[in-house]
């Protein structure tokens, strides 16, 4: 059985989803010609949060959600026009609601000041007295009149109803409270004991209610179970038959679906509303979409992922064994093995697809960030999101929130000009920040672009010189100047602003992105704006690697950092002093690092006559040639944590398991190159100033 804490957690998880759809709906409402159903959806979200909060006695949340819901209802019933001013308040209400939910989850004190201020504003908008709203049970006389003098409700629970802890008896009691009722049980579908399965439902009830009751009222009784039972409501007529004689299956009567789609009639302020809106078809489609997902604990998916990693390894081992016993020439064996390999690949892809989540989850949160940044800097701005359906690994989604938040703030604060400047330059007063995502050649590309003034390279240079980040008079290309923004300690704003100048700069963003295995680039056109592009790997679980031989060990080098491999002519090799060696490659001198020595696998540097040089470039644009004994293969490897059971190893980012079941370490070229920068010398380009 679930303990109350589980229910609580479930409520907050659901709240997260509801808040999302709420914020989404509000944004849709700003578009011209929005669907009326959107308003209903927003209203329902607020209402559901209120309902859940009441169950957990979260008073502040209930009070606020209730007031918010009332305002939404006024919009819904066209008593309040959702103009820009109203929508701004609605957005802030949605933010405040999210904060209240967050506070309740952490069991913190809610921010009452913010809440009270918003409540006042809501009051002003609706021009109504606060005291007029309270928790009044639904009064029947507010309901629209129904022609029939009674209703027949057919009700067949589905297993989910029981699984979610609902009790048909309670529902029937609720119906009986509405008026004189006759309840009939249809047990005809109950099978013989030998065919009986415990988790199937065979019982149906027919409740005949007499009196003047609106179908909407009935709908409120089934409000929380409508997804997990069949309900049919029809007016009582002379030929209505008791349930036992009804056909075993019946379809829901359209009127209920229409009522559902018209919104939640439970609200006491609801005025009589025609049961219009999208037809039953649309309502069903929405329900199907919602029912098509399940919530799965991430641990389970990870376990599955691990087992598939194992499967791939076992498959490789098996084919090795078959090779050694000389069966590989047998066509049947080869075909069977190929089949297994293909299946294993497909399963691996499918599981990775489970872990993949649309970027929408992050992008949605950025609307609020932009709104707050725009308010704080008094620069009107809007956010356009494109390609939110692009999917990336779940872990990555979570770790993208901080860098993107920072970049959006940066775009508003530093990118966009103020209103006056924009008008002078003939741009619309409202700035635009575009957040887009797309799959590009096996990577995910996310771009944050603004239509602001672009990077003022003269000022960037000035600042970098004044902070001692570069030597005065250094010759720099525009791209190199742009790169200076990523140096730690660089902040182009003179005064520290509340928005993006919190002592952290773009260097932090770059570090985060690099930690995810990605790269970040800037493209800027003066007067037209700047674009920050982030290229990310599709998943954190698998890496495309080059398998190298080093003494008797096999190691993996991430292919993303490999630029080229060389077998240099002796004339291209030069010694510098006692220890330094460089290779001349197309006019560049690249320092050589002997990996075997770095990892302590051999004491003496290997002769450069043997082995291969692999030129790597790190994200900080340092280049080095790694000397290895040989290149074995190139393949996808599953990343395994080395820190979980052992600890961090310098120059190694993780481990993986090879086809023969042995472990290979994955080299971190960035760390290797950095650690050698001191003695190997000759680090090209300006960024060495950052040492």
């Amino acid at each position, binding site marked *: 059985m679930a303990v109350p804490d589980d229910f609580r957690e479930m409520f907050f998880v659901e709240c997260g989803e509801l808040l999302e759809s709420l914020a989404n709906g509000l944004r849709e409402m700003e578009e011209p010609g929005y669907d009326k159903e959107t308003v209903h959806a927003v209203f329902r979200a607020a209402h559901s949060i209120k309902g859940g909060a009441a169950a957990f006695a979260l008073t502040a949340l209930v009070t606020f959600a209730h007031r918010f819901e009332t305002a939404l209802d006024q919009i819904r019933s066209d008593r309040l026009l959702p103009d820009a001013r109203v929508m701004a308040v609605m957005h802030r209400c949605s933010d405040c609601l999210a904060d209240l939910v967050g506070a309740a989850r952490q069991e913190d004190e809610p921010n009452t000041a913010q809440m009270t201020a918003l409540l006042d504003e809501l009051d002003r908008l609706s021009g109504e007295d606060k005291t007029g709203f309270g928790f009044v049970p639904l009064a029947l006389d507010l309901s629209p009149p129904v022609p029939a003098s009674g209703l027949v409700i057919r009700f067949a629970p589905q297993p989910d109803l029981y699984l979610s802890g609902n009790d048909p008896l309670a529902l029937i009691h609720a119906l009986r409270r509405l008026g004189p009722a006759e309840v009939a049980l249809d047990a005809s579908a109950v099978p013989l004991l030998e065919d009986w399965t415990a988790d199937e439902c065979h019982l149906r009830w027919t409740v005949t209610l007499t009196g003047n009751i609106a179908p909407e009222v009935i709908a409120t009784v089934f409000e929380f179970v409508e997804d997990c039972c069949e309900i049919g409501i029809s007016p009582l007529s002379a030929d209505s038959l008791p349930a036992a004689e009804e056909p075993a299956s019946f379809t829901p009567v359209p009127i209920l679906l229409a009522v559902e789609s018209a919104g939640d009639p439970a609200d006491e302020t609801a005025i009589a509303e025609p049961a219009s809106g999208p037809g039953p078809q649309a309502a069903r489609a929405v329900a199907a979409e919602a029912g098509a997902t399940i919530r799965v604990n991430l641990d389970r998916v990870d376990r599955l992922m*691990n*087992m598939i*990693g*194992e499967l791939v*390894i076992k498959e490789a081992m098996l084919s090795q064994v078959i090779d050694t016993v000389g069966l590989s020439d047998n066509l049947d064996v080869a075909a069977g093995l190929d089949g297994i390999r293909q299946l294993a690949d497909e399963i691996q892809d499918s599981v990775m697809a489970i872990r993949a989540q649309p970027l929408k989850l992050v992008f949605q949160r950025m609307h609020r960030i932009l709104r707050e940044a725009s308010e704080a800097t008094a620069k009107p701005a809007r956010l356009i999101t494109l390609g939110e359906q692009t999917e990336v690994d779940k872990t990555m989604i979570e770790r993208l929130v901080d860098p993107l938040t920072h970049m959006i703030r940066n775009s508003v604060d530093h990118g966009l000009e103020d209103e006056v400047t924009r008008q002078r330059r003939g741009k619309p007063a409202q700035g635009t920040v575009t957040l887009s995502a797309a799959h590009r050649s096996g990577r995910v590309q996310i771009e944050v672009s603004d239509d602001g003034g672009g990077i003022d390279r003269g000022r960037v240079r000035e600042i970098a010189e004044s902070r001692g980040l570069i030597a005065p008079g250094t010759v720099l290309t525009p791209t190199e100047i742009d790169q200076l923004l990523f140096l730690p300690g660089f902040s182009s704003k003179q005064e520290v602003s509340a928005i993006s100048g919190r002592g952290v700069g773009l260097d932090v963003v770059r570090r985060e992105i690099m930690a995810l295995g990605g790269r970040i680039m800037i493209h800027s056109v003066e007067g037209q704006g700047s674009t920050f592009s982030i290229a990310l790997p599709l998943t954190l679980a698998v890496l495309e690697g080059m398998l190298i031989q080093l003494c008797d*060990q096999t190691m993996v080098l991430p292919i993303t950092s490999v630029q080229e491999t060389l077998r240099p002519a002796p004339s291209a090799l030069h010694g510098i002093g006692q220890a330094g060696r460089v290779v001349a490659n197309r006019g560049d001198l690249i320092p050589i690092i002997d990996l075997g020595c*770095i*990892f*302590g*696998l051999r004491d003496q540097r290997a002769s450069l006559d043997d082995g291969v040089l692999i030129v790597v470039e790190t994200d900080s644009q340092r280049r080095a040639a790694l000397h290895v004994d040989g290149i074995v293969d190139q393949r996808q490897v599953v990343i*395994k*944590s*080395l820190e*979980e*059971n*052992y*600890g*961090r*190893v*310098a*120059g*190694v980012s993780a*481990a993986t*398991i090879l086809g023969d*079941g*042995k*472990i*290979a*370490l994955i080299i971190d070229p960035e760390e290797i190159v950095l650690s050698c920068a001191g003695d190997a010398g000759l680090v090209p380009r300006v960024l060495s100033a950052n040492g």
Partner: protein
Amino acid sequence: MLQSMSYNAAGKHDFIAFKLAEQDFCIDIGLVREIRGWTPATVVPHAPDYIKGVINLRGAVVAVVDLSARLGFGPSTPTQRHVVIITLHQGRVVGLLADLVSDIVSADEMQMQPVPDLAADPAREFITGMITFEDGRILRKIDLAQLMPTPQEVPV
């Protein structure tokens, strides 16, 4: 997980006894997950000399501690006859390389004795107690917490 001691039905503690350089050692059975034969390990750079490397334990990366080297008997040259005792201690899975597992023994509190004060022998700091038997056999009880390198010992 069993934290310190596991009791068997007779109210005694169970231990896995193993041999190392002709001496008998033991470890609480509650900490032992499985025992497997030695398979070549992947060398970990910059590791202390008593870390034989890392092995693949059904998809997890597990470090193997060479007990012989750790206890000061000098590094062992593992063969297929050597065993790796897989232990789970404080959430970390660690393999212990031993010459051979000899027995599972039961012992009660009466048989436990503190470690006699010896001169600073490297083994002294890893042994938390002695278990004596009537036939004169002595088991040295190993403390897992001390075996693995502390974060300071692993160079970063």
